[in-house]
C-alpha cells in the first residue's frame, strides 16, 4: 500500500473522534436526567394545575443545573476541534 498515515493526520483523526464521543455520551446522560425532572414536573401539574407557574420555574432551574456537566463536555469538544493543544 503506497499511502501512509502521517502523525499529524493521526492526531487530527483522533481529535475529531474524541470530540464526537465526548459530547455523544454527555448527551445520553443529560437526556435521561432532564427527562426524569420533566416527567415529575408534568405529574405535579397534573395533580395540581394551579401550581403550574411555580413548578415550571423550579423545573427550568433544575434542568439548567443538570445541563452543567454536558456543557463541560461541550467545552472539551470545542477545545479539541478549534484550539487543539496537540496539533
Amino acid at each position, binding site marked *: 500500500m503506497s499511502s501512509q498515515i502521517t502523525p499529524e493526520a493521526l492526531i487530527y483523526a483522533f481529535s475529531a473522534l474524541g470530540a464526537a464521543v465526548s459530547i455523544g455520551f454527555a448527551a445520553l446522560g443529560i437526556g435521561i436526567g432532564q427527562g426524569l425532572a420533566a416527567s415529575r414536573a408534568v405529574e405535579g401539574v397534573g395533580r395540581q394545575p394551579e401550581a403550574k407557574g411555580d413548578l415550571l420555574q423550579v423545573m*427550568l*432551574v433544575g434542568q*439548567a*443545573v443538570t*445541563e*452543567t456537566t454536558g*456543557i*463541560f463536555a*461541550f*467545552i472539551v469538544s*470545542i477545545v479539541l476541534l*478549534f*484550539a487543539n493543544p496537540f496539533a
Partner: protein
Amino acid sequence: MHIGPQIVIKFDNGIFITNTVCFGIIVAVILIVLALWATRRMKKVPDGKQVIAEIVVEGVYNMVKATMGPKGINYAPYIGTLFFFVLFSNMLGLFGQRPVTADVNTTFALAAITFVLIQRQALKSYGLIGKMKEMAQPYPFMFPLKIIEQLSFPISLSFRLFGNILGGVIVIEMLLEGLATASEALHLPIPLLDAVIPLPANFFFDIFEPVLQAFIFTMLTMVFITMEIATRDEEH
C-alpha cells in the same frame, strides 16, 4: 472558523483590547443611561416611565427577600445589577454582535466577584476560626473535600454561562453560513435565504436562553450567599 473574540485595538508592547471589552463598556453605559432617564424628575406619586422603574426595583427586592430572607436585603442592589448586566450582555446577539459573555474572561470575572462575596459573608458570620471549624464538620478528613467544593463552585458557574452562550453563537453562525451558501447555489445576488428562516433559532438562542441563563446565574449566587448567613439560634 474563528471562534474567539476579535482584537480591536493593539498597543505597541503587546497589550490588546478585544471587542468584548468594548461591548461590555457599551452595555454598562446603556444601563446607566436607562437608569438615569427613568428616574429624572421623580415624583412622590409615580407616573410615566417611573412606574416601570418602580416595578423593576420592587420585583428585584421581592425576589431577594423571598430567597435570602430579611438578612440578605443589603445584597439586593448587587443582585439586580448582576441580573441586568448578564441579561443585556447575553442578548447582544439580537443586534448581530457577539455577546459579551461569550468570552470566558467576562463570566469568570463575575463568578470571582460572587466567590469573594460568599467568603466575605462566611467570615462575617463565623469568623476565621469558626469557618475552619465549620469546614471540619462532621469529620476532619472532609476538610480538603470541602475546600474543593468551595473552589469548584465559581468555576462551574462561569463555565455554565460561557458554554451555553458560546453554543448559541456557534449554532447561529453555522446556520447563517449554511443559508448563505445555499443562496449562492441558487444564484441569488444577496443571501435572501438568511432573511426569515433563522428566526426560530434567533428566538431560542437570543431571547429564551439569555433570560434563563441570567436567572440561573443570579439564583445560584443568591442561594450560595444565603447558605453562609448564620441563623441566630446557633450557640454564640
